[in-house]
């Protein structure tokens, strides 16, 4: 009658591609973009080590429409990363108390995004100042 019924795990291997998990999958995919951008920088560093001709090949690649499209994609992923990173941050840290008041999760997220926007502006200004 009631024989042993062992638990069978769902074999839905494409669960992450479903709409319900879109936010999860997008957030995790930003990791590919962060590593991918580092890879482009490393390629530049290696070509720099190989002399001017190799470095020019890398610079010309950066000017190609492929690279520009790729970097546009990287930029979108970085923005998603900033957003999700500070969205999750308050959940991963101990409760923050300032002046006997608990700082809410939304406040921590907002503060993080403000700092990120400020850092974005400062870095661009520094780049403007040091250009030839």
């Amino acid at each position, binding site marked *: 009658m009631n024989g042993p019924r062992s638990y069978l795990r769902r074999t839905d291997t494409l669960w992450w591609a479903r709409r319900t998990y879109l936010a999860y999958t997008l957030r995790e995919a930003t990791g590919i973009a962060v*590593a991918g951008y580092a890879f482009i920088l490393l390629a530049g560093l290696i070509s720099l080590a190989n002399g001017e001709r190799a470095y020019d090949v890398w610079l010309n690649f950066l000017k190609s429409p492929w690279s520009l499209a790729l970097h546009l994609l990287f930029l979108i992923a970085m923005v998603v990363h900033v957003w999700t990173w500070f969205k999750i941050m308050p959940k991963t840290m101990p409760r923050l108390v300032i002046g006997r008041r608990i700082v809410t999760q939304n406040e921590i997220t907002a503060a993080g995004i403000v700092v990120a926007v400020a850092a974005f502006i400062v870095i661009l200004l520094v*780049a403007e100042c040091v250009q030839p």
Partner: protein
Amino acid sequence: MKRSVAPVFWLLFGAGGMLAALTGPALVVITGLAAPTGIGLSPDFMSFARALSFVHNPFGKVILFGIIVLFFWHGAERIFLTLRDMHAGGRLTLMWICYGTAGVLTFVTVAALTMIGV
């Protein structure tokens, strides 16, 4: 109790994630969009001579090392955890693939920086 190595990778993930959140968008705009197109920045921003003197500078070396390596370890941990969630393979296999790649690329970064010298 056997000590776990997870906190080490978790720390690298956190450091890389924070660095990417604060510098990533600006860096992509500068090196990937503005400098190559010459829009908003001089087209000579990343010229050979300037790039070389930047890497010759110890601060430049530390900045490049920190960004490249921590971005790699951040991505490696993310991809590892996601592949785990996707049941893409055994824990050890995925660890070797993800952390192994980040480890090799760390070595290559150090080698390239050393080759360029001071």
